[in-house]
């Protein structure tokens, strides 16, 4: 197969990074990204993009750690380069704080982030209602910069971007040899995955340039993540809610919770409210599948269900998905010529 045609469906951080990995591992592939939404209207654009892993209950920890390590290493190199500002990648230091002792003193990612250590008593004085804390430095992928940078790199490789709503993966079998499904929450409808469920998150994006430190409450519900131009204040975790409309009461509640951790936020300006549905699953689905109708086969690689941890593991899962695409190509080349209608 001279030039396999690969369609990546989805243009969030997973779709774009997977497409980029495919162009890297398979330079002879012709890659196209198909999506009904592009930045700044993807779920990824709502997220703060902080590299703090989310735990997937059914994925082995070793694999999650590898995904996080790969992602951190990749972004660390960008952060150190002249491209850092264009890519929207920057370091940020801060604290994760707990009211009661954390389940794990040393999370699996503590040796991957920088300078991880318990907070001192003096540092904890800033948070009178919390008794324990962890200080560290991690990376942040600021959207939309990061997605736009991925798009730019993809276009440089000749990857085409198409605004298109794909109602059924099968509709792509004529134009493409392999389909990569990075549709996030869309996979619920697109491939009928009932194990995928939304966890609604509402956030505020505010102007508060004096906030340089991140603060995350260990329960994961309240957080303050300073980005390049705006600080993301969060949030909510509403399992099963599909609503994309901002809720005014929730806005007030998020603001109050964040101000209680960082009183200077009272002076924040220019509050923007956003909502995203975390495409949640007990384990991320990075998997090959072959769809068939009669004698026609369509290889599919799935890469979705990253829930709250998309940015943290995106590069690691993209690389795995790209390897699965390579396997699909080998399988296609191994088999006799594929009948095309």
């Amino acid at each position, binding site marked *: 197969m001279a030039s396999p045609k690969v369609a990546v469906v989805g243009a969030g951080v997973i779709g774009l990074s997977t497409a980029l990995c495919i162009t890297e591992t398979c330079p002879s592939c012709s890659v196209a990204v198909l999506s009904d939404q592009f930045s700044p209207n993807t779920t990824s654009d709502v997220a703060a993009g902080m590299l703090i892993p989310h735990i997937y209950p059914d994925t082995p920890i070793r694999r999650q750690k590898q995904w996080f390590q790969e992602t951190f290493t990749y972004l660390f190199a960008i952060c*150190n380069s*002249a491209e850092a500002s264009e890519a*929207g990648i920057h*370091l940020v230091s801060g604290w994760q704080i707990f009211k009661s002792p954390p389940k794990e003193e040393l999370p699996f990612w503590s040796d991957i982030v920088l*300078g991880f250590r318990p907070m001192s008593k003096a*540092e904890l004085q800033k948070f009178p209602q919390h008794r324990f804390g962890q200080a560290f430095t991690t990376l942040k992928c600021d959207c939309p910069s990061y997605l736009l940078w991925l798009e730019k790199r993809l276009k440089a490789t000749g990857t085409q971007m198409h605004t298109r709503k794909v109602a059924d993966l099968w509709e792509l079998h004529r134009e493409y040899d392999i389909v990569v499904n990075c549709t996030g929450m869309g996979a619920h409808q697109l491939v009928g995955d009932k194990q995928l469920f939304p966890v609604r998150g509402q956030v505020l994006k505010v102007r508060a*340039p004096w906030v340089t430190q991140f603060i995350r409450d260990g329960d994961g519900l309240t957080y303050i993540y300073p980005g390049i*131009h705006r600080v993301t204040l969060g949030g909510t975790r509403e399992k099963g809610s599909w609503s994309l409309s901002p809720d005014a009461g929730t806005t007030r509640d998020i603001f109050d919770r964040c101000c209680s951790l960082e009183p200077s936020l009272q002076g924040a300006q220019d509050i923007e409210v956003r909502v995203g549905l975390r495409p949640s699953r007990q384990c991320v689905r990075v998997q090959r599948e072959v769809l068939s109708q009669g004698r026609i086969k369509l290889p599919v690689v799935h890469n979705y269900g990253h829930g709250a941890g998309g940015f943290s593991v995106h590069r690691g899962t993209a690389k795995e998905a790209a390897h699965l695409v390579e396997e699909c190509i080998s399988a296609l080349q191994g088999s006799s010529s594929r009948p095309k209608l």
Partner: protein
Amino acid sequence: MRVAVIGAGVIGLSSALCIQEQFQSLLPSLQLEVYADHFTPHTTSDGAAGLWQPYLSDHGNLQETLWNKETFDHLLGQLHSPAAKEMGLFLISGYNLFREPPPDPSWKNIVLGFRNLTPKELELFPGYSHGWFNTALMLEGRSYLPWLTNRLMQRGVKFFHKKVESFQELFSQGVDVVLNCSGMRSGDLQPDPELQPGRGQIIRVLAPWVKHFIITHNLKSGIYNSPYVIPGSEFTVLGGIYQHGNWSEENSAKDHKSIWDSCCQLLPALQKAKIVGEWSGLRPARPSIRLERESIRLGNLQAEVIHNYGHGGFGLTIHWGCAMAAARLLGTILQEKKQLATPPGPRL
């Protein structure tokens, strides 16, 4: 009882506020006045980036380390107050980098979370073999000075826009005590060969992705002669110039290039940063701060001057400890003049 402060930088204004807070209620006849030829945003304090960080060593001057600590603790206590934003006060973390093992600084237990850098962190800074990470404070002069000014005005302190030519000039007008907070130009009021300019130049850029301060050190060339990057609330300051004895306040093209090249080498992404300003200022450098009383005989009058100048590149860092010390000196003077029963406030 007229007390005149000469100088409206961070030292003059904070000394005035400290005095006002401690003595106004005890001494209703107290009239505070501030005289200066430059006010915010045209003072040295306005040009400084505003990072709280003393020099690496206090050279055994424990007094100054205590004043630094007093200032840090005072500011930390204000961090959660509604005034913090208006004051230009916020927390910031960052890096100090070295090419050889440095001795521990005098301030390691004052700042928050002080620790050595891990090998992984040092990968961020090729060429540097050792370093520290800690969380400190920013106090931006461009916000802090107006905040101090407003509070002083609200409390009835009078401001005079004029260049004072001599202490005599004020005493002959009926001022009882003068606070000399004239920074770099104290020598115009009373010669002091120990006071020398430590000229600095900075470039202001827009680089909002930089969330940490980065101060590099070259132990052989001395403080601030090595690149530094300090992010503020409106722009990021690039610097690395300290020229002892240079009185020029003009921006130098050679210094610009040196700052730009060295900072871009430190943080390659800065090449894309937009330059929005440039400034040169004179750090009022002295082997130690002059903070003391001086009695001057004028005819048959004994005039009192409290000197509070020579804070070099750490004025914002040490200002509150010095203001409190200056206020204590005033307390002693007031007691001697039988204006007060005993000086108020904590004793050192």
